[in-house]
């Protein structure tokens, strides 16, 4: 964990793919956000008794 923190907070590690370059810390943040987004889509919310209202009729 400490080494991982050092990677993020120390000298920037920049990754290069041709014309594209990105700092490792920024890439890890983007990947983490994509993981959170995917989890938000697939993880059950935990409410077993669904309720309805007339939201669609108001549009």
């Amino acid at each position, binding site marked *: 964990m400490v080494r991982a923190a050092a990677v993020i907070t120390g000298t920037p590690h920049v990754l290069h793919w041709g014309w594209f370059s990105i700092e490792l810390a920024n890439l890890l943040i983007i990947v983490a956000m994509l993981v959170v987004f995917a989890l*938000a889509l697939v993880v059950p919310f935990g409410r077993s008794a669904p*309720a309805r209202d007339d*939201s*669609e*009729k108001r*549009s």
Partner: protein
Amino acid sequence: MSGVGAAADQETAHRPRDSWTRALRERIERTVPSGQALPDRQPEYVSSWIYVFGVLTIASLVVVVATGCVLAVGGVAWWHVSSLGHFFNSLHLWSVELFFGFMVVHLWGKFWMAAWRGNRLLTWVTGVLAFVTSIGTAFTGYLSQSNFDSQWISAEAKDGINSIGVGAWFNVLNPGQMLLWHVVLLPLAIGAITVLHVVLVRRHGVVAPIDAVDGE
């Protein structure tokens, strides 16, 4: 009917139709359907974590504003000389990080479900405005750190601002102007846009999934 209610009805009956207070009251009453301002029932498809991120964004904004108010009490250089000030500065920074993270996940979710459907274009547009205004607020925050970092950022930013022709009115090399934009004008704008965005969400309701049949 109570005496107070009867008196109110009598007063309303005598109030002229062109009364601005009456017109404003009726406009407010029409803005959000009855019972939808703070609903306790939602469609089945709202039972998803993806809908939580909008509320998390607002919760983060509350923490951002609250910690910003504490920093304003101590002053712009307080966090350099006080451990308590440094603590609140860190709370301010990380609540901003979470604010943007939650808002971007909320944005992704709404984009892929085409949340502008069903007469909800203005809801989408106010969300975009909130996002863009938040970026501007964060940038002026970088310029208000009162350290070498903010000096370097402002020196780099001036060329970009000048290239779009607004450097005479929005001078990133003027820390006083940037600080006032950061703590007064832009937070007020974000607050107003956020209120409008939430009112529009409650007015039109949460958009149904693309493949939903009859709103199920």
